[in-house]
């Protein structure tokens, strides 16, 4: 997954901003309570922690953000926090579809 998304920083962010975002995120997901998230934060930080890493990521990054287009979107969505509920009409449509055996 895109390390900028994982750490929640903009592409133009500097070293200090990235480090701050990393430390804040680690505080919320310490390794003992959420080792998976902690590992992904570490990977993301290592990928963009300084200018050289960021250049390398921009030039040679080959990470595929998911196993399928929709999986990529879901993974992207998970990083944005809890999603907003859909519109009531969309919900009605979805539930009625679920009712069709």
């Amino acid at each position: 997954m895109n390390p900028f998304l994982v750490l929640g920083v903009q592409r133009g962010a500097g070293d200090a901003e990235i480090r701050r975002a990393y430390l804040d995120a680690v505080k919320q997901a310490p390794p003992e309570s959420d080792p998976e998230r902690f590992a992904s934060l570490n990977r993301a930080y290592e990928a963009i922690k300084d200018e050289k890493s960021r250049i390398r990521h921009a030039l040679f990054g080959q990470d595929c953000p998911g196993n399928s287009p929709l999986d990529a979107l879901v993974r992207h969505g998970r990083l944005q926090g809890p999603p907003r509920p859909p519109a009531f009409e969309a919900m009605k449509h979805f539930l009625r579809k679920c009712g069709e055996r």
Partner: protein
Amino acid sequence: MNLEASERRIRDLLNQQSWRKARDEAKELCKIDRGRYLPLLIGANVGLAREMLGKKLVSEARQVIAYLKTLAPRNVWEELEAEAAMKSGDYSAAAAGALRVLDQSNAAAAPLHRTADQLVLAFQTPSSSASAAAAQAAAIQEALEAICTEEYERAAELIRPIPRDSAFRHWKQFLKGMTAFHRGDGERAARFLLDLPEDSVPGRAALPYLHWLGKADGRVRFEALPDHCREFLAALAGAAAHSRFLVRAEQLWMDGRPHEMYKLVRNGLENFPSESLDWAGTLADFCLNCLFILPPDEHGEYADFFYGLMEGHPTRSAQETKMLLRVLCLACALQPDSMFLQINWEKFLALRARIDGANPRIDSQAYEWLGMILAGMQPSPSPGFMPPKSLPRMPDAKGAVRAFQKSIEADPDNLEAQLSLAYVLGRLKRNGERNRLLDSLARRFPENKHVLFLAADRCVARKAYAKGLALLARALEQDRLDPTIPEAIVIARYLQAFQLFQRGRCADARQALDAAEALAADRSDDFMRSRWSILLRRGVLERLYGDGTCVRQDLAQARAAAPSLEAYLLTGHIVWRRYQSAGSGPDPFAAEFRQVCLSRAHAAGAVLLLRILDFWKGRAHAPSLDVASGLVRDYLKAAARQKCTREEALDLIARIPPGSAHAAAARTFIQAMLDKDGRDPLFRLHDFRYRDDPYQPVRSRRKKLNAIMKEAVRRKEDQVIQAVRHELDKLDQLPPPPPFDSPFDEFEDEEFEPQGDGVSGIMKEIASTLDPIRMRNLAEMQEMLRNASEQEIRRLRKTFPKEIPLDVFDMLLDAARDHGPDTDPRPDGQPKPRRPSKRNTAQKEFFDL
């Protein structure tokens, strides 16, 4: 007519959901006894109606329901009628019908839930109704609306009055799960949603939520989600407006049509491909980078599609061209095409500069990468045999030099590019350029240990010892704990002393050796820096080139400090050969080694000698080790005649890989240990490894390993069990051995099937075709071969009748040995000592060549 049999068949048909057949047969039975068989007829019709509704055949279902009305009580067909109304989009009728069913208290539990689902999904509650079911359904619907407008508290208030035993309890649970989900409490949401029955509407509606939370284990897999769940997931991800085409893209990807997926996404999104951090950017990332996760055949097709997109048709934007070029070049790096890479990577960099602005540091890193790829400095994932310790192939060395030069030009501070350039220049034997580059780097990066070390190494290589030592001293200042630097200094001092002695500057040479001694290591098994090693070199150099006054003292001290006399003499011999000149005279160390050491050889001493030999192998300034290797071989032979402990034997065997020059000695030690305990699984495994013959059938090799495994399991020797398992795995992965030109080719027809394993099976097959007298002769011959000594076999081989080819003799010998000690251990557990087969030995040598 057997009524009971007919009834059983109808029940079977109902269980198999063959509703029509069941209905037709039940009709016949009802004509005989309506009261008894009517429930079967009703069941068949209900099933048929449900199946039709499931297939959206509403009008056909209505006909069945109309028929049911003539047979069944109201509660049976009313629920179906409500469902039919729902399917036809008549929500008010569906709601009214469902409510009527729910108001009846005698309905069964499952249909009650289904009807409750229908009432909720109708999203219309008759205003006239004052029943509890109507109130609960209305509460559920309002709560759903409240959640959709993020009024979570209100939703909770609305569903609170719904009792635990209500037909709507799954909906209440689903709404609680939804609330927790949208409030960010994933654990709580998963708890509620996972408890829902999978076949209920809320249970099915929970699927996208569970997949989002990554908690859908055991439920429908992500790839198998129905389209409406995929659309809902896309909507949750914030792409509600594009959910339809995203579902289509997902399906194309699942169908293995990535290029069509790309086209669809490209046409569906206005700003595709974007580098933004929103979902569209992530989707663009996926569409491009999925190239790297595709299986090889699809990878090629997708790359070709990208290439065609750039070449054949105009791309949508410069941004798309830039992104395609990057991905194509990265993909090409796996199997570098120098010309393609250079042209397209430069195009990419030019476009990148135009779109994002020039940045020399990016250019420098980009060219450095190109150089590394062209120099083969990255591990190539392409399959192929690469001999161990060999240098990687350089796809385009000159192109690599140019790329590194461009990289350095763009950013002169790019140290990695400069070190890589130095490496490539070295590989191209352009040593002058490399030395100048390293010298300039040492000036430019005076505090970089690695640079100083490399520059020093080149100075020492060109015999500029003073300069090299100065650089090493600076490197040591940077890191006093790195043991490679003092070792490098000591080596440089030895070389310097040798050069000075050769030039007759003995005093300066002694000073150099004194400086080396200052860095002496305490460990006596450090064969480069230990005090005895330094003194030994000093003694040898003094004897060969010095005045010889202090030779005796130096050598005596070295001899006393050495870990053993054998180690001292072997090292002395190697050092002598290193420094000797034409008029040096005979080597005193080798002579003394032969005189003194062979008579007192022992396994532990042999281990130390092997370590010394290993230490010198591959050293840059090592002399020829042929004589030293011969000395060690003689020592090993002598040691094999002495007693040794199990540990000593193991230590020794660990230092001698199978197939190496000293493998014969290792086999002697193994045999000695097997003579003590013929069933010892560890030494049997070593025996297998040292004698393993690739021409033996895999089955017989596996048989031997299984026998060893059995014993290891009995003795609970876990490490041996693991090692045998590893050997068995290797056997499983073995390709078939190269064809062997057997004189028995005529047997290789389809009808010939050997009766046993390999050679022995063939021999049995031959024997079965012979008359009894010849068969007895053959058996006697095998018996004789089995019991013959090595010398007798050699003699027999020479005197064997000329009309019988030697290969047949060897096959007889192998067949005799197939019944040898490994496959048929003697009752006392002592295996008969094995003899190596001559044919096998010859093949092995050929194979090794």
